[in-house]
């Protein structure tokens, strides 16, 4: 399975995105980061650490589980309910600029669910979207504000972002359906 981003490349990409965030939100003192479970949350924490170094101040960071907002939740003919995991947003998102983080942007349905979930927590001033990989094939009108890497793919392929905290190594790989 071809590796399209290694650990070093991933780290430099996140550093670049952190700089883009600080540049675009210059003078913004109400910035907060929310990562979508599981790997978006890991990437969000890394971005938060990089932003501390750049801004000299810490940025509130939360974790969002979108399971209960999925549009396919009760539509499976058979099969298990997806696991529900913790959402932790230990700050008010009212009037904040929220930077929403996910690993892969694909159909856009996860982001739709995340937007609905976020709005249930309050009324942010703005929401910006960061993805490490945009693989195309959108089914909803959703676009990322910051993209680590644009990766043209076919439907048959799957893109996996691996992070050290969960998978033991940092890597982005692209797999053909046969291997998946």
């Amino acid at each position, binding site marked *: 399975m071809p590796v399209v981003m290694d650990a070093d490349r991933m780290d430099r990409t996140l550093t670049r995105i952190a700089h883009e965030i600080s540049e675009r939100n210059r003078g913004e003192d109400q910035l907060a980061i929310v990562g979508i479970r*599981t790997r978006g949350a890991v990437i969000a924490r890394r971005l938060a650490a990089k932003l501390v170094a750049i801004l000299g101040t810490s940025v509130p960071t939360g974790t969002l*589980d979108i399971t209960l907002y999925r549009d396919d939740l009760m539509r499976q003919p058979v099969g298990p309910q997806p696991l*529900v995991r913790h959402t932790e947003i230990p700050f008010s998102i009212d009037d904040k600029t929220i930077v929403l983080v996910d690993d*892969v942007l694909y*159909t856009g349905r996860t982001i739709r669910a995340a937007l609905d979930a976020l709005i249930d927590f309050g009324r942010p001033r703005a929401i910006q979207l960061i993805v490490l990989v945009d693989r195309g094939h959108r089914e909803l009108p959703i676009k990322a504000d910051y993209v680590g890497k644009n990766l043209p793919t076919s439907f048959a392929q799957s893109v996996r972002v691996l992070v050290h905290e969960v998978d033991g190594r940092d890597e982005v790989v692209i797999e053909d359906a046969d291997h998946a």
Partner: protein
Amino acid sequence: MSGTADTQRATLSTDAVDAGRGAVTTLRSRHLLSIADLSADEITLIFDTADAMKEIGSRPIKKVPALRGKTVVNLFYEPSTRTRTSFEIAEKRLSADSLSVTATGSSVAKGETLLDTARNLEAMAPDMIVVRHTASGAAHQLARVCRAGIINAGDGSHEHPTQALLDGFTIRARRGRIRGLKVAIVGDLMHSRVLRSNILLLQALGADVWVCGPSTLMPAGIDRFGVHATTVLDDAVDGADVIMMLRIQRERMHGYFVPSLREYFTIFGLTMAHVRRASPEVIIMHPGPMNRGVEIASEVADGPCSVVLEQVANGVAVRMAVLYLLAGNPAQV
């Protein structure tokens, strides 16, 4: 179109696969009738899901769209404040459409049988029915004839599974584990469905269960459950990590099982003296409604070890977890 949906599903579910939690990710049955039907892994799955559900209650908007379009009927043949409101709140937080039918003020009062009532409700196609009934086995009977998922909210003196689940959840949250804890359950062992469900759940999760009550309220053969049975309260609470008091059902007590409520309190009522014999981190539980001065002294019920109100709060999260997990298991037919 359907191909796209499948791809989407596959993409989203990688998260679930990688979650690395308990050994199971689904319940085998679409009903919750008895704790005896659940494996230890399934109980842990319900606890873990309830853990996540708990956070929803602290949001500004305490509602998620998970059960949108599902209809849940709460069919209550016995009076209930806690359990019924707890289920109703859980259903509303998950966005299910719910309604409650109580025995008084419905055709039940006109003499309709349980099965006829259920069949008529079925004709309106609810997805789940939560039932409380005075007869043991009522929920099982409904599960045999209904297409809807059935949740037992208490059947006679048989079981009250969601109460045991919220008790176990509260113990795990407070003590970090259940395995190896000494749990003393004290009171009316004869009529308590909470007792039966709790024994099954606590033993499945490896607790050391002691039961204590007057010999007149001690069911014959209770030791076959594998619990320690005693009529001496001090023995039960000695070094206990959890003390769970059961309600003395006054309506059943007229002189037959217990000479007087005052005498009962003297021998089996939980006081601070007993709490001091227990583990320093002991938690005191009660499923409610409490009879202060009968099974529990007010200073204990309101004391620092009491987790009675925490149990009620956890009840909503646990019932949300049960509703959510069962809703994914449609009828097999």
